[in-house]
């Protein structure tokens, strides 16, 4: 047996993972090589230090369960069983705001090329947009009166598969 093999077997012997036959061979080697005693002592000290350095749990099991139960109940109330973070909520609000700005920008662009329509644009500036409640899930709607046509436009914003889509009626 060479030194490296003896060290590997010593490590296994410390863990009680060495067979009786190999243990006997290792003991014979250790008897002839007492310098390995330092190695054994060092390795045992590492285990002792590791266990001694373990801080006690700062939370009682009851308090920890209280926190976990609250977390799993919150996620249980969600449609896909996922944890909703502040960022998730902001994504939705941000997407809605972006869609609104794009829609308003596009509408103003359509109105602006004709200088003769300045009066119409001025009228558009005065257009009142009203957000209204809807019973549709994951949807928001707004109502305004189109200055050019005089029609009442109802926009419904729905949230489908993570993307927004707008429908006018």
């Amino acid at each position, binding site marked *: 047996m060479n030194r490296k093999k003896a060290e590997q077997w010593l*490590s296994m012997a410390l863990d009680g993972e060495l067979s009786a036959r190999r243990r006997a061979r290792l003991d014979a080697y250790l008897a002839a090589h007492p310098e390995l005693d330092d190695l054994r002592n060092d390795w045992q000290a590492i285990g002792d230090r*590791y266990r001694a350095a373990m801080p006690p749990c700062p939370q009682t*099991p009851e308090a920890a369960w209280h926190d976990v139960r609250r977390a799993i109940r919150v996620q249980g109330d969600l449609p896909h069983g996922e944890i909703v973070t502040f960022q998730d909520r902001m994504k939705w609000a941000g997407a809605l705001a972006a869609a609104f700005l794009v829609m308003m920008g596009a509408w103003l662009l359509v109105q602006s090329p004709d200088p003769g329509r300045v009066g119409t644009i001025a009228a558009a500036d005065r257009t009142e947009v009203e957000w209204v409640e809807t019973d549709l899930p994951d949807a928001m709607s707004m109502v305004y009166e189109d200055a050019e046509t005089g029609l009442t436009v109802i926009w419904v914003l729905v949230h489908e598969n993570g993307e927004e889509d707008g429908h006018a009626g």
Partner: protein
Amino acid sequence: MPKHASNPVNTDGEPLDIPRLVNKAQAGDEPAFGELMQAYHQRVYGVLVGMVRNADDARDLSQLAWIKVWNKLHTFKGDADFYTWLYRVTTYVGLDFIRKRNRKREIELLDEMRPDRDANAEVAPSVMSRPDYAAQKGEIRDVFDAALATLSPEHQTTLMLREVEGLSYDEIAKVMKCRRGTVMSRIFYARKSMQEKLKDLR
């Protein structure tokens, strides 16, 4: 002596019927899951604090681990001991955290090595975590933690499962999904490496 993963007991000292509690929890029984959690709470925390070496991080990760256990409990088939499966989920949470933390430290280290960096700038955490720096401070706990931090997350976790949790090589192999020989090799390497770094503490 290390702890051994024996069956937990209730407040009256009677052994808990773990398979029954697991079955009920899999059916969505919250109180049963609560009993399981309270029975294994200390062990899960112990595994995580042994891995990440920070009480606050371990507490947060412990909560995250239990939420994952609740979400994944339906995948537990009962073909292994529940604690083996629980340790597996827990060690994955810990390993994921350590890998992310190590990547952050590597970035900080690269930042320290930038030629335009102020030489008088404050010593960064990555330097403070080195054994030689900790040895200068003369705190044994810091030296030990710094030596542990030089091991790979896998070596560190394997050593902790053996020395602190008292798992056998076969049990560690199941938790970490590797071969028994790999467990033996990792523990041997980890001990040699730790011994080398801690030789000044004798």
